């Protein structure tokens, strides 16, 4: 049975600062005080192109059908999510009034060797050859999919979707940590807690949503990247951006889960030719964006690239309109004056 209302989020990647305030806003609220959560970032920001978080999640697969169940790998905590390093503060900073035994703060385990990784390992690395280097930031939470494979994957039926807002949750009392849901999510947005032996994930800050406040990753975002609202609310900015102006796309729609987090694809400065002249080609190749973003599972890569171009044209022409003194609903949406302009819950 479909849910009564579905919460949605749009992230405008032309606004993302890569500052990880969303990551920290989430971390300090939900996963910094209980055991076994240090490797988890329910919200993370990854530099694209890059390996993402957990490492290479885009190629891990998901619970598309029962037969996949045994072939999907389970990400290893230190090699895929990254070791949550601890530091020797007590050896370096003897604030208790004693001798110190070390002169330098060092992480443990040492971040070296072939298996080393962390959630933001690829920060600002990107691709391309200077001066035509390129990268952009991709903030990610659970997509609270309309057709969530994690729900199907759970043999105990401990994963469910709430009727009133479509938020996908793992019942923390019913879950027994089989971690099939971790395998089941192609976005790898469910995390296994090895201490509590349960699966845990982004809860879309439902205790806040229930108070008609935005989720922390969205409200604390200083780049004002996020729009949050209900899919059914035609007056919401998410509806206008997704359905009316059609400038927001899904991440990997070919995963067929119908994510409810959408992205406005990023512009990029033009490349330079081999003789040092400015071209009119954006430095992020369209195929790179098309590989990530699209509307529906059935679209070809070319169709997805065309959609990205169409979105760029739409935004650019509205931007020009405003620059020459005109008005534009789209540009007003993209320059939210204050929180209520982008968050309607």
């Amino acid at each position, binding site marked *: 049975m*479909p849910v*009564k209302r579905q919460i949605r989020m749009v992230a405008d990647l*032309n*606004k993302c*600062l890569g*500052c990880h305030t969303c*990551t*920290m806003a989430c971390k*300090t609220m*939900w996963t910094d005080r209980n055991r076994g959560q*240090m490797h988890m970032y329910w919200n993370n920001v990854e530099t694209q192109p890059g390996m993402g978080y957990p490492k290479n999640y885009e190629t891990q697969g998901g619970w598309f059908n*029962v037969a996949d169940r045994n072939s999907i790998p389970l990400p290893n905590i230190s090699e895929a999510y990254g070791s949550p390093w*601890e*530091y020797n*503060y*007590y050896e*370096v*900073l*003897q*604030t208790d009034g004693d*001798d110190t035994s070390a*002169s330098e703060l*060092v*992480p443990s385990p040492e*971040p*070296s060797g072939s298996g080393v990784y962390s*959630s933001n390992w690829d*920060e*600002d690395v990107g691709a391309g050859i*200077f001066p035509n280097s390129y990268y952009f930031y991709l903030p990610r939470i659970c997509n609270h999919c309309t057709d*969530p*494979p994690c729900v*199907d994957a759970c*043999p*105990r*039926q401990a994963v*469910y*979707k709430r*009727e009133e807002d479509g938020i996908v949750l793992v*019942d923390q*009392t*019913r879950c027994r940590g089989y971690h099939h849901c971790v395998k089941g999510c192609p976005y790898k947005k469910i995390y296994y807690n090895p201490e509590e032996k349960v699966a845990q994930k982004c809860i879309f*800050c*439902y*205790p*806040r949503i229930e108070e008609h406040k935005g989720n922390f990753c969205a*409200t*604390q*975002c*200083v*780049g*004002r990247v996020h729009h949050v609202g209900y899919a059914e609310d035609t007056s919401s900015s998410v509806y206008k951006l997704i359905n009316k102006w059609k400038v927001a796309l899904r991440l990997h729609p070919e995963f067929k*889960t119908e994510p409810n987090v959408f992205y406005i694809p*990023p512009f990029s*400065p033009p490349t330079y030719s081999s003789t040092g002249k*400015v071209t009119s080609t954006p430095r992020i190749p369209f195929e790179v964006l098309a590989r990530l973003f699209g509307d529906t599972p059935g679209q070809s890569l070319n169709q997805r690239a065309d959609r990205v171009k169409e979105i760029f044209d739409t935004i650019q022409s509205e*931007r020009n309109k405003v*620059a020459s003194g005109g008005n534009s609903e789209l*540009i007003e949406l993209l320059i939210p*004056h204050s929180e209520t302009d982008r968050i309607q819950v």
Partner: protein
Amino acid sequence: MAQPEFGKTKAEAGASTEALAARQALAKALLEKGALAAKHVLALDLLERVHEPIGKYPYRGWETLYREQWNYDSFGRTTHSVNCTGSCTWKVYVKNNIAFKEDQYADYPEISSSLPTYNPRGCQKGANYKEYVYGPQRLKYPLIRTGARGEGKWRKASWEEALSYIASKVVETISNHGPDTITFYSANQAKFAITYAAGARLANLIGGVVCSFYDWVSDLPPGEPMTWGVQTDSCESADWFNSKYIILWGSNVLETRIPDAHFITDARMHGTKIVAIFPEYNPVSIHADIFIPVKPGTDCALALGMANVIVNEVLYDAAYLEQYTDMPMLARVDNKKFLRESDMVSGGRADNFYFWNQKTGKAVLAPGTMGSSNKTLDLGTIDPALEGIFTVSTLSGEVKVTTVFSLLKQKLKAYDPASVSGITGVDPGLIAEIAREFAAIKPARIIEGAGVNHYYHNDLNNRSKILIAALTGNVGIPGGGFDHYVGQEKFWPEEGFFKLAYPLGRSKQRFQPMTLWTYVHSNITSDVDGLWPHPISTYIRESVNNGWMPLYPEGTLDSGRSPKILFIWGANYLNQAKGAEFIIANLLPKLDLIVDIDFRICTSGLYADVILPAASMFEKWDLSTTDLYTYITPFTPVIPPQLGSNTDWQIWKDLACALADTKFSFRDTLPDGSTINRDFSTLVEDFTAKGTLDSDKDTAQFILDNSIETKGMTMDAVNEQPRRFVATSEAWTSDIRDGAAYYGFQRMYELKQPLSTLTGRQQFYIDHDWFLNDFKEELPVYKPPVDGSKYPLRYLTPHGRWSIHSVWRDATYQLRLQRGRPIVYLSPNEASVRGLADNDPV
């Protein structure tokens, strides 16, 4: 995707029904025997089937778990004093007396409905200051050093012992060496006015030396005092939205001004063209309309190349230059000095200057100069010539004169786009194109940051960029100009702060430029000594002897006097130091006592003799302001001072008390010859103004009451909601106006008020002998980076995303989002030449 039936085939489902029944029976038996706790029953698959997990999940009682995690008892308002220019107002949630979650308050009142608001303001560092409040870095009680300096051996001390030890050393040092050997250093009153004022107030009362900070950390753009006569005056970030053309020039706002960066991305969506000029493709470049890579340290040449195009193609605003710059002022052809009134008239002033009035064909005194009684830039009936060579009759005969603009034009010839391309690596056509755009699109703005300011010739770099902003008539208008942001530099409600920090008056305070003090007392050997006709020490001596710059203790250069006590609070002096090895080797041995006051042990603390634990940023009343916006932001004690810490106001008050106990007194002769009788027995009364300034909240209110910017505000009201300043003092170059973002030099442009430069205008020509003869920098010129060709690689040290100076550099949650350790980026080609792979230690 079709909904599979319980994730299993029908056959599997049938088979498991039997097994389930058997296990249920077993579980029931075990439960009845008491051998199995109820909570384990579910593990044996005593599960009711959920028919509709999408939309009709029946067991939702557990959801209280996360609601409880979000529940809080109270919340309070505070901010962070890390000199990041954020000054962001944060809401800290408290449960069971633990500050457990930080969220932006996001309640800055809007300036105008046509400008985006400042809400929410913050970053990922401010979102997790609690790590320090409860972290192992936190100091718990006073520590006294037991080993060698920097060795890290300490013993716990009581407050009484630590303060009386410090007090006895202070008295002993004043008796033996004089009060000007006691030096006080903190970084920046704007980030914590009360904390700063506490130490400065005691220094003022006992005769100590208070050091500067903005020059010392090289945040100061020296081109601003040279050209504009101000330390810095920049627009608040909301005014970026008013620009139509923005050059981000060495200011990577996506990393370094995170709370303000949205005004750039907002402006871009609004149609503003964003140009990013950097040596590397960095975070802010990704949101630019064009990225222009420039060779490191050659930005000044690029600016002069743009100036060349603007002047050659006559794209400049001549009327603006005539009224608001020194471009029409006359300079002598023979000695290149300005033509002064003292050249022309017996008894004439040296600080009055001339135009060539085209209407009368005569040299005429310019209004608004430093010596002029006519305090306006209004030209009246004068029509100044911008170019030409003229003859004037001076007291010593006829002299040829020309204009500053003519001299500039001559100087700029060297900076044609082709030559500049050779220096900067930027395509000559592109140089011309951005010059033309910058001149054509108004308002246009240059945003500058530390990236281009931390070069030896940063003054020339600043002056060149200000030059193109002025040539195009952009300084003094909304959305236009040259705006530099690094550090919080000055506190808006300045007058109240000065009254609090310097109760005997600023004229009775020994102030010291920290750069000079450190340089001299650390015997720093400089790699720029050989650049000039004379060694740096010669210029320093001339400056100190002429009284241009104070150097304490008095007589240092001749008698070898040296500082004896250094107080450091709310600042990491050693971390900031360029040449820290000289400080450790040469300055520290001169010091009998180093006191560090901080909430944590930082590098400076590691080398101190006594460390006093200060309240954290969650635990005191204080005030913060920043150049990036126009609000007063309070700190409040969301929780009480933790462990054995105390607020800074309390610590300095207690030290005043310990000093009062000594009943010491002495007669102090100040550099101006006046004397003060300093009687420590009344020190507590003096420090607290007879008890009226007892608490940090009282002192914060004192500042609000005594400043025009905050007239009528109360601490309780600004805790309720941050307030926008209601007016600006003469320390600012513009008025604060309702409905408009603050920007610089409005009083110059609109009200024709002269600047405090010698010529009263934006002054590009400096006819000081050093500039004319020794440096050849009378006008902006390009000089390559020092030792730029000596090494194969250039090491750029921009501010980072993950720390503010040394704060958060040692924070676990920040480090986990990096690579666990500090990193450097290296070009893949350069790395492979050196046999280096990603993540190798270097």
